[in-house]
């Protein structure tokens, strides 16, 4: 065990944990904004109740997304100073843009929304939640642009051992980023959809209130549409991975040798002939490179070393991502069919929605592991190895102390968050709104 291993563990732990809250924030923010818009348009009381109910769940979750996100930004400098010095010129730009163009908007307008219920004109107040929701989606774009550059570096040259940006536009329109954004944001909407379905399913089992049917129906549409977006962009991502990160693709498929007309492995031993070649290139007979052949080629090009990521983790996270994601989307398509023409959602399906709550979260976690562990041993593909990225001056003890602190703190907060969410779900929406007092101390959602 050295500081590098612990720094990697720390990055893994803090990132995966952060990414449990972020997708829900991204998707749920838009969902709440949609509910409030529906209330604004129709004036129907139950939309307001749903807005406030899901708004509260959104805020409980939002807090965790924010506080765990701050850690991410500092971590590059703390644990990965060599990486930061090498890439800052390129990688830092999207991070700075995220703060300037997305975070300010998100946090400021969310503050206005939370406390502005009685103080802002209705339209302005509605615009605030949309601005906050757009802000969180924008920040996903900037982060993914930065992340995509690590996998497929573009728009730069290496001068004096440091990457120098030559084309910001190329960085912001990186093909990998453009494929990842709909994939990850779509997945975020599936996570939020699955969450709303679980909550609505729970309430549909308790009451037959039409309000919950409406919420479930909206979430079904959202999840199904997002599912189509994720599948389409996933297909595009696979083709880009074939070109840009063949080692990741080969590892995800367990393909050892270069193969023409490569089969797609569903689980070890069960294969669909030629499908992998088709999925990666659009041609059933194309050649897909294998891990062992790639390893040989990389050693010739980059010198001795192991250029293969952890095969088992990459292989299985790919399968978990696809199967759990598809199950969630499949359930929602089924739900759409069964509730067509104002039919009621059958109780067994409502129960399944509750049980399926963890599936999309596990799917996005697996997708993240596939994406990032599949990039190893590089932090910047072809340019900088992970082993060369770590902070040279930071001791094993320091990383161990911070890893322990963050793990314990995150663990404790996860329990509190789960309890808080469960309690507020069980309590349900407020029965009816108290008359709006001009100077009520307690704003509608906080304190």
């Amino acid at each position: 065990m050295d500081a590098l291993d612990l720094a990697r563990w720390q990055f893994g732990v803090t990132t995966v944990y952060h990414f449990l809250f972020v997708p829900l924030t991204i998707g749920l923010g838009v969902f709440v904004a949609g509910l409030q818009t529906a209330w604004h348009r129709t004036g129907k009381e139950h939309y307001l109740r749903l807005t406030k109910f899901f708004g509260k769940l959104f805020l409980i979750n939002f807090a965790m997304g924010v506080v765990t996100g701050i850690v991410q930004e500092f971590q590059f400098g703390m644990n990965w100073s060599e990486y930061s010095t090498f890439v800052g010129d390129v990688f830092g730009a999207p991070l700075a843009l995220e703060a300037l163009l997305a975070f300010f908007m998100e946090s400021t307008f969310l503050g206005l929304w939370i406390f502005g219920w009685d103080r802002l004109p209705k339209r302005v107040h509605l615009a605030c939640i949309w601005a906050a929701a757009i802000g969180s989606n924008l920040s996903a774009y900037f982060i993914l642009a930065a992340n995509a550059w690590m996998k497929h570096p573009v728009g730069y040259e290496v001068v004096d051992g440091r990457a120098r940006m030559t084309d910001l536009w190329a960085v912001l329109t990186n093909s990998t980023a453009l494929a990842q954004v709909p994939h990850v944001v779509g997945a975020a909407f599936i996570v939020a959809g699955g969450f709303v379905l679980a909550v609505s399913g729970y309430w549909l089992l308790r009451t037959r209130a039409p309000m919950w049917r409406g919420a479930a129906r909206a979430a079904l549409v959202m999840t199904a549409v997002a599912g189509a977006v994720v599948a389409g962009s996933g297909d595009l991502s696979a083709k880009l991975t074939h070109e840009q990160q063949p080692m990741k693709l080969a590892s995800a498929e367990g393909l050892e040798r270069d193969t023409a007309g490569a089969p797609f492995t569903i689980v070890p031993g069960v294969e669909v002939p030629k499908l992998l070649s088709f999925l990666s290139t659009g041609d059933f007979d194309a050649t897909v490179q294998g891990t062992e052949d790639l390893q040989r080629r990389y050693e010739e090009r980059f010198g001795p070393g192991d250029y293969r990521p952890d095969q088992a983790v990459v292989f299985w996270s790919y399968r978990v991502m696809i199967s759990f994601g598809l199950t969630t989307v499949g359930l929602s398509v089924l739900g759409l069919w069964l509730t067509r023409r104002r039919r009621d959602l059958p109780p067994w399906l409502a129960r399944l929605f509750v049980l399926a709550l963890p599936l999309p979260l596990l799917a996005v976690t697996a997708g993240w592991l596939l994406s990032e562990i599949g990039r190893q041993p590089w932090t910047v593909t072809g340019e900088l190895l992970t082993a060369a990225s770590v902070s040279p001056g930071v001791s094993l003890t320091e990383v161990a102390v911070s890893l322990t602190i963050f793990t314990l703190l995150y663990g404790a907060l996860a329990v509190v968050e789960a309890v808080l969410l469960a309690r507020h779900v069980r309590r349900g929406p407020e029965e009816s709104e108290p008359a709006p007092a001009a100077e009520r101390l307690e704003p509608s959602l906080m304190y």
Partner: protein
Amino acid sequence: MIDLWFVIIAFLWTGYFMLEGFDFGVGLLAPFVSRDDTEQRQSLQTIGPVWDGNEVWLITAVGAMFAAFPAWYAGVFSAFYLPVVLVLVGLIVRGVGLEWRGKVTDPVWCDLGIVVGSALPAFLWGAVFANMVLGTALAAVVGGVFTLALCVLHGAVFLALRTDGPVRRRARAAALAAGAVTLPLAVVALANLAFGAGAAGLPETGPVFDARSVPALAAMGALAAAVALIWRRREGWAFAATATAIALTSVSVFTVLRVVPLPGLTLAEAASGPYTLTMLTWIGLIALPFVLVYQGWTYWVFRKRVSLAH
């Protein structure tokens, strides 16, 4: 271009200290100026709509350092590893405390999180920056205690300005007490900053010496003015004075960092290429006015004093 970006980063950090400075102070003081849960809510509501936006100043300052001076960013945060971990822990427990307070049955843990989470960064940022500039452990401790006291004072004035009733009265008393503690500390800390020997490589005399002495001494004057203004019940002006004191202290610190950002590193060596800096400048020039306008608007929307429910 490098100079411009140094000024932008100094501006972002200064904005952060001025803004989050008062919400750290309010977070720290809230349990002490409030006698019951309603008053505690009243106190915290003064920062409720704005604290998260204030914290983005930090995220932007750090992000801008990463983009414009990668080697500086990497050097600072790996050198001050454990203090930064503790700052992050503080910001985490404070953030969830503030957001979750209204949603739990027994908010005592949230209140504790808010107090601890406000105290840690208020102390540690001062310690880290004092250490960067002056290079000794003693200076770090003095700097930390000073910024902690300064945040309490700044927050107390803000509370007195933004509340009414008993909380306002107690906040004013707290501001006077904090002023009495902060002033002598300021004499030590700011004199150290104005005339201290400085970190390795810092010239003892010369243009830097003068350039940092002036704002540091002026900060002392602003603090004295703030205490006098609180005494005369001019809370708005007193708040402007404490904000000015924080800004001047920060300016003085960055004047030194301009010459020695980190031992053995110059700004030019730490900087990104001219292309990146130009691009960031254009985007910053377009975006920053919008940010300032809508953040300013937030303060305008919530400009009324927070009252107790009748």
